């Protein structure tokens, strides 16, 4: 008897946000904009990622990371935020967990900022406006490094 | 003898007729021009508007279309920062609008009760001067609805002009003059041939009377006061109106010393001034009054030799009149002769304390700025120099920071500061870094500190008189001790109080008086 497994489904495609073992990648989104948080969340959850937390400023971001640790696979980090900016938050997260995977997402694309972030330990840097393809590509790239 | 007396009487009649005709001619010559109007065409007919109501003749580029307005409201237009409503008179009067969409429409900016309104027409003709006694009341053939927009009709040189009363057209019943709530009307004026008594053609048949609703025609202006003295002249008190106009004209023109005595001369010069201002070529004021007077004499002679008339009727006329005004090396690098004269006029190094700040409003494309920068660098090798250069013409000022030019256009004097590029030469960084080019309106607040040199050639005369006043006051305040101001070659700052000439090789002034910080 042929089972479903014998017939490859044309429509089936591996959701990119899901690991080999079937678990979803866990994401912490740090951004002071409700809109951006929603936008990133939308893009990622549609590909099977699991958004496990959000934070609206750098300080909150660091706290959330520590709280959720080790159950965060990737952090998306805005740069311009009140209270504590993204680069400072990045620094603290890396200090806490040197293997943290943090991807900067910002409206600013200044060379010196990009360099600094990468030096401090960010895995990648995405400049807004965001498009779905770019976001997924860069986040997966960072996870697979 | 009967025969003799008959001939005598015929001869007498002829002679009488001749005398009458001569007197008529004399009368015509004596009737000096006391009313000027801007003429234009609308649906093939000639119309005119009192020049006193016209702020400017304009070409309208991009409108911003405003929805929910009457169809004749074209939208709003940005007139150098001020948003004004634009009305298409053709649409308003139901006159066919030509099919082709022009990139730029011709029109007038009219002033009604302190508001400016843009008015689109088919084409602007010229400025015509007449005697106000020539204005006839509108022909009774016009239907009621339209007659109120007509001040009168004028025949001039074979053409019949319908003189529109802009105030009536653009003022609502309650006295608001903001372009809102305008009604659509038929065209005033006769259809079917000028002068014809063709009744049917007259406005009555035309135009729908659209309901006056609340229309949002661009900016909602606050309610204005009662309409000012009707300019619709010629109805009755032509003489009085004429006199008023003259007085107004003289007041508007240069208020400098010693106006010529003759009333006719007065009128002509001040009307020249108005035409210049209307064409936005030039604004007479005490600063340039001497030049205007001298130029006017010259112009009169020139024009009568050429058999042309004195009045400025077109933009070309205005430009021709103003042409000799401009300072040497306008829009060009200063030649060595001029550089030398400026150098001799500059204060001594020790007369200028501290850093040398320079203010250069109205710098255009920057030729004079670079010229001055190089001159200052060579004259004061040790000083820290900073030049604030600005202009309101975006296109010109945008090219200034990276000005590129052929080597041939630059005198030897500048050589050491030039660098060669792919498209030509430009100035070396050490000169460029002295200059800050800004897109800036000199009438707005600026952040220029106290300056040792103010270079502003021909700018003042391009500003309306009140603005000239403000800017020169600003110059006075900003000029530091020992500093000099260099206006245009034909601009005399010492016509104003608080300034005196430094007697330099170029036209230059410094401040005097108790508020002055001049060291001399």
């Amino acid at each position, binding site marked *: 008897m042929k089972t479903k497994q014998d017939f490859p489904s044309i429509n089936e495609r591996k959701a990119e946000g899901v690991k080999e073992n079937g678990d979803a990648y866990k994401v912490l989104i740090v951004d002071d904009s409700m809109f951006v948080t*929603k936008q990133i969340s939308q893009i990622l959850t549609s590909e099977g990622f699991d958004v496990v937390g959000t934070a609206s400023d750098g300080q909150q971001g660091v706290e959330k990371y520590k709280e959720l640790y080790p159950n965060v696979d990737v952090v998306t980090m805005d740069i311009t935020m009140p209270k504590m900016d993204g680069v400072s938050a990045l620094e603290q997260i890396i200090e806490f967990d040197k293997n943290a995977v943090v991807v900067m997402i910002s409206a600013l*694309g200044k060379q010196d900022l990009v360099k600094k972030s990468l030096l401090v330990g960010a895995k990648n840097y995405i*400049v807004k406006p965001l498009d779905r393809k770019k976001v997924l590509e860069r986040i997966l790239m960072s996870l697979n490094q | 003898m009967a025969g003799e007396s008959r001939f005598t009487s015929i001869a007498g009649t002829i002679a009488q007729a001749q005398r009458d005709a001569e007197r008529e001619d004399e009368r015509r010559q004596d009737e000096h021009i006391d009313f000027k109007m801007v003429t234009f065409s609308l649906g093939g007919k000639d119309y005119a508007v009192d020049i006193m109501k016209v702020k400017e003749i304009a070409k309208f580029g991009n409108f911003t279309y405003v929805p929910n307005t009457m169809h004749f409201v074209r939208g709003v237009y940005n007139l150098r920062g001020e948003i004004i409503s634009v009305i298409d008179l053709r649409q308003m009067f139901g006159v066919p609008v030509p099919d082709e969409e022009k990139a730029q429409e011709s029109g007038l900016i009219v002033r009604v009760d302190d508001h400016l309104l843009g008015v689109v027409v088919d084409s602007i003709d010229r400025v015509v001067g007449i005697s106000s006694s020539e204005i006839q009341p509108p022909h009774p053939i016009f239907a009621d609805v339209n007659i109120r927009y007509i001040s009168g009709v004028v025949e001039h040189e074979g053409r019949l002009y319908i003189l529109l009363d802009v105030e009536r057209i653009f003022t609502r019943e309650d006295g608001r003059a903001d372009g809102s709530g305008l009604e659509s009307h038929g065209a005033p004026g006769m259809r079917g041939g000028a002068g014809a008594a063709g009744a049917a053609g007259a406005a009555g048949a035309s135009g729908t009377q659209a309901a006056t609703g609340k229309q949002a025609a661009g900016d909602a202006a606050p309610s204005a006061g009662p309409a000012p003295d009707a300019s619709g002249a010629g109805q009755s008190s032509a003489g009085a109106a004429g006199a008023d106009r003259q007085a107004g004209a003289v007041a508007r023109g240069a208020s400098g010393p010693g106006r010529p005595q003759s009333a006719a001369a007065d009128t002509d010069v001040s009307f020249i001034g108005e035409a210049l201002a209307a064409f936005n070529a030039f604004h007479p004021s005490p600063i340039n009054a001497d030049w205007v007077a001298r130029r006017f004499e010259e112009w009169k002679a020139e024009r009568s030799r050429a058999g042309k008339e004195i009045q400025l009727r077109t933009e070309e006329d205005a430009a021709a009149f103003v042409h000799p005004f401009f300072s040497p090396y306008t829009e060009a690098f200063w030649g060595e002769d001029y550089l030398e004269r400026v150098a001799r006029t500059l204060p001594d190094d020790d007369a200028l304390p501290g850093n040398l700040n320079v203010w250069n409003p109205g710098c255009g494309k920057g030729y004079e700025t670079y010229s001055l920068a190089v001159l200052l660098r060579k004259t004061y090798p040790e000083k820290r120099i900073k030049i604030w250069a600005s202009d309101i013409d975006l296109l010109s000022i945008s090219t200034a920071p990276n000005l590129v030019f052929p080597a041939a256009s630059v005198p030897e004097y500048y050589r050491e500061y030039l660098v060669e590029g792919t498209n030509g030469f430009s100035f070396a960084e050490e000169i460029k870094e002295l200059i800050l080019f800004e897109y800036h309106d000199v*009438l707005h607040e600026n952040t220029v500190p106290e300056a040792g040199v103010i270079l502003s050639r021909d700018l003042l005369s391009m500003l309306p008189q009140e603005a000239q006043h403000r800017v020169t006051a600003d110059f006075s305040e900003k000029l530091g001790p020992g500093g000099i101001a260099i206006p245009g070659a034909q601009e005399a700052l010492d016509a104003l109080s608080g300034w005196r000439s430094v007697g330099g090789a170029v036209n230059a002034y410094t401040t005097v008086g108790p508020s002055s910080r001049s060291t001399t």
Partner: protein
Amino acid sequence: MRVEYINPFVESAYNVLKEVLNSEVNRGDLYLKSTSMPVLGVAAVVGLAGDVEGRVLFDMTKETAINIAAAMLEGMDLEKPTELDDMGKATITELANMITGQSVTKLHNLGFQFDLTPPAIFTGENMEVSDTGVEALIVPMEIPQGKIEINVAIRERS
């Protein structure tokens, strides 16, 4: 305003609006305005710091703001907004942030040190913004959703 600063703002406004709204974007003529200016109803403000001090103000009617928010939120499984709620405001603020951010990036590439501060949004009737003694560059942008007036007021930091 310094000539070199103009293009980055103009280009960024065009680029970001085009990309985010995916529609026709037309730029009106630039001009200069001084001191206090009436606000159309919704104003998003982003602060500038660094070589200069000042701010960029994005001015539009409430209707335009709602239309823009609707366009940007399209496809995000949210109800189409009919009012300017918190999400709508966050959307407009983000638009302001992106345009200013891209401008600052371009200016940086030209050698100017600019920074931006987190944006704020103001809504209300008959609002007026008064910046004493500052001249502003106005960049009018026309989009299908309405008109946005970008108002840049910058002062060189001596």
